[in-house]
């Protein structure tokens, strides 16, 4: 039986062979792999980018004190970005499932319309939920906009719900029973922290402090962006996003305020996206290895 760890290693191996760099998780709290700068920033602008990484993701409101077999406030996403999206991207994805022992012709695999949108990131895309025998196992998105800016070329984002796939492969009823490696379960690694974080997120988090922190981080993001340092500024956007999620889980944000908070984070994301694009342009888009194409794009932008 494939362990959780082996699954991740196989995906690393597979996507590595497809020319992806295998990056590591970003060292800050975030709601999804999309928020890792390896996706959010790299999807912007004309430079190609192929990456795969596993991303610890936090959704404070989804905590269930470790009592629900399917819900976690901290979980993993296996994230792949292919920019520009290759013509055979779906075949590549299906091949990756084969690496996990899932043969498409023995199952019912469906691509069901799903339009992804992240109001806080000013991002949206079109794609599918991918179903394996009725269970959503992957989110597949062609990014159309990020930080309010049109994405061109378009990236394909593949986000595997890695725990769900593990539960399926290992035939487990509870996420906590997943075998991480022989003798150690997902529960051994994460159960107690699920309980603790649920207490913290729902009961203990200090609303006044978090609100102050949100305001401070917002200011810092703006200040650092103004100094043209996109990634350090982006760190504070991520902090704002997570602080907002915590305040939300704490029930401290009314519906009216909610729209306001989301708008504030989105404005920061846009600011940083603009700064990042400018920086890449100033650098002359170094990831475009084809000199002629690079010159062409740069001179086209001069005119535009």
């Amino acid at each position, binding site marked *: 039986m494939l362990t959780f760890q082996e699954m991740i290693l196989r995906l690393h191996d597979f996507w590595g062979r497809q020319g992806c760099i295998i990056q590591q998780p970003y060292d800050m709290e975030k709601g999804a792999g999309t928020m890792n700068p390896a996706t959010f920033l790299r999807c912007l602008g004309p430079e190609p980018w192929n990456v795969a990484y596993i991303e610890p993701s936090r959704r404070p409101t989804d905590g269930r004190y470790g009592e629900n077999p399917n819900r976690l406030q901290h979980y993993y996403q296996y994230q792949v970005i292919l920019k520009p999206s290759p013509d055979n991207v779906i075949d590549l994805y299906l091949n990756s499932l084969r690496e996990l022992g899932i043969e498409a*012709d023995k199952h*019912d695999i469906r691509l069901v319309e799903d339009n992804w949108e992240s109001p806080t990131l000013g991002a949206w895309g*079109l794609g*599918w939920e991918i179903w394996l025998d009725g269970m959503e196992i992957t989110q597949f998105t062609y990014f159309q906009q990020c930080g309010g800016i049109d994405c061109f070329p378009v990236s394909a984002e593949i986000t595997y719900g890695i725990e769900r796939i593990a539960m399926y492969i290992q035939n487990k009823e509870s996420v906590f029973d997943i075998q991480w490696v022989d003798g150690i379960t997902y529960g051994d690694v994460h159960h107690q922290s699920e309980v603790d974080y649920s207490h913290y997120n729902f009961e203990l988090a200090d609303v006044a402090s978090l609100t102050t922190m949100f305001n401070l981080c917002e200011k810092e993001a703006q200040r650092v962006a103004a100094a043209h340092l996109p990634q350090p500024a982006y760190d504070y956007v991520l902090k704002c996003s997570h602080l907002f999620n915590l305040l939300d889980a704490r029930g401290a944000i009314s519906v009216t305020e909610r729209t306001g908070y989301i708008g504030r984070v989105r404005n920061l994301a846009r600011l940083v996206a603009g700064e990042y694009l400018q920086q890449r342009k100033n650098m002359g888009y170094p990831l475009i290895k084809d000199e002629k194409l690079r010159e062409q794009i740069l001179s086209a932008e001069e005119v535009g």
Partner: protein
Amino acid sequence: MKRDLILEIGVEELPSAYMTRALADLQTLAEKKLTEARLGYDRLQILGTPRRLTIIAEGMTEMQGDANIENRGPKKTSAFDVDGKPSKAGLGFARGQGLEFDQLEIREQGGIEYLFAVKREAGRPAAEVLPEVLPDIINSLVFPKSMRWGAYTTRFARPIRWLLALFGQDIVRFAIENIESSNLTYGHRFLSSGSLEVGGLAEYKQKLRDNFVILDQEERQAMVWQQVQDVAARAGGHAMQNEDLLEEVTYLVEYPTAFFGSFSSSYLEVPPEVLTTSMIEHQRYFPVYSDSGDLLPGFIGVKNGRDYSMDLVIAGNERVIKARLEDALFFWREDGKKTLESMVPGFENVMFHERLGTLMDKVNRLGQISVNLGTVTGLSSSDKLQRAALLAKADLLSAMVYEFPELQGIMGRYYALQSGEDTEVAQAILEHYLPRFAGDSLPASAAGIVLCLSEKLHNLVGCFAIGIKPTGSQDPYALRRQALGLVNIILENKLHIDLRKILLETYACFSGVKLKFDADTTASELMEFILQRMRGILQERGISYDVIDAVFAVPSSDLTEVADRITCVDEFKNAAYRDDFMVVYNRANNLSRKWENDEVDQSVLVDESEKNLYATMHHLAPRVRDMIARRDYEGALRALAGLRSSVDDFFEAVMIMVDDERLKASRLGLLKSIANYCQLVADFSKLVI
């Protein structure tokens, strides 16, 4: 010779929700573009699966039709100089058209004579024209949402991955981005590998079928439904008939195989609406019922593929539905620990609309509107209405409705009953959302009718007052549907209410809210909006536009009264007394149309005929008024039709437009008063007879 044209747009899986519309649009587009290109064919077929949109034009002509091209040149007056010789402008036009001047024609258009160049263009071979037409069709297709992919700028619902374009056996060559058209197609994504070469229509269809693609959506839909019914029968029940679900499933698969899965009967503790919603909305399963109509602990799924390793697929689906139903059971039990009323304080934290306040604000207004409407209609009682209004939205704060928003109202009723609320109150909570879609049922209970109308009045008045009105296809708050519902409920229950007055009273409930428009403007705009919906409803019932125009020209804010007059005038059009009435009306109205005064000075009347007409009318008037008041419109019209002989005698005996001003005024006044009585029911001058 004729050949078959096939265009297959191979795509990544299209959203099922787009398909019906996309196929219809493709039909229109193909007809239009092929006609414009003067390409004839015997039969056009538009077929589609999740992975392909196919246009088949059978028996297309080898050659494009010839065309008469007519180009208009300068006016005749400027095409010749003073000597009658061709002017510079005239010669220039001929040259530009590649013709000699004397080959031009002179034709009249809009009363002016122009030079015309009339040319006959011989048709080109279809094979030459198609490479321009086919990409044009593809690029002209629009979707609710479209996207770009890779480094290309073309937009489509999902990426285009191949293009098969065949005219007979020949490839129609063109490209969209990096995709070049070919004679290759692809079979089922998982049950076929590699490309399939196609040499014609029959082979195209056969190869797809052999490779697990049922191309024809109607055939596929019939297959799905047949399989679902068979599976249901084997499981000892029958499947839910649900057109939307069937259509969605048809467009989710290229090759259907239905299967039965089961779940523990312990989940049947949860209301059936919850279970079926979860099955349909989350999983696209068909629920199964026993012959006695009870939900069975099972479901029918439709796999995209053949019946290979079904055990694995069924086990997987059963796991998923189990987790879903486990959630539902949890929500049901959690919600059940609280009373519905205990959810109300949460309204303070839920926004109804940022400019119209919280849900608490709304519910308070709903209470006022309901109680007022209950008093006006005499339906239900104030305390029940107050209670129903307070609890109407409480289920929005339940865990179940948070998870399944489409169960709003349905859960409210269950939770109200569980909380020991009055059954009429519980029923009203369920019914106040009705009708949810065209053809849905209407509220039936007294409190339900009032609460349902109040909900719609509230939303219509609130939105119009802050400037939210439907425009074109934009109607995010479904105000058209709500206005339609309002009219239907009023008519169905024959409620006689002064709608304009109710709208003003509803407006008054928004005190404390900053509104953009005043009460009068809001009520007037809404009356017009609502009457427009009523016009639509009447037309759908087969009432002709002239009857509607005639009746609407005599305005009333009592819609039921308007509907009664509509019925009367509609029947009147074919009634035996119609002609007598129309003679009375026309003779009276034609002369007095511009006369304002209906006063008659009896003392100046001289002729027997006019004295008689006056006396008859004097006697008739109170009867007609009384019949109108009793809504006996037919009686009123018949009574007025009875004036026929008196009116005829009058017109035969006297001249109306005499020099004696007093006599003329009285005669016109008499006619005016007859016309006015006729027009209490409708403006009969608008009737087309």
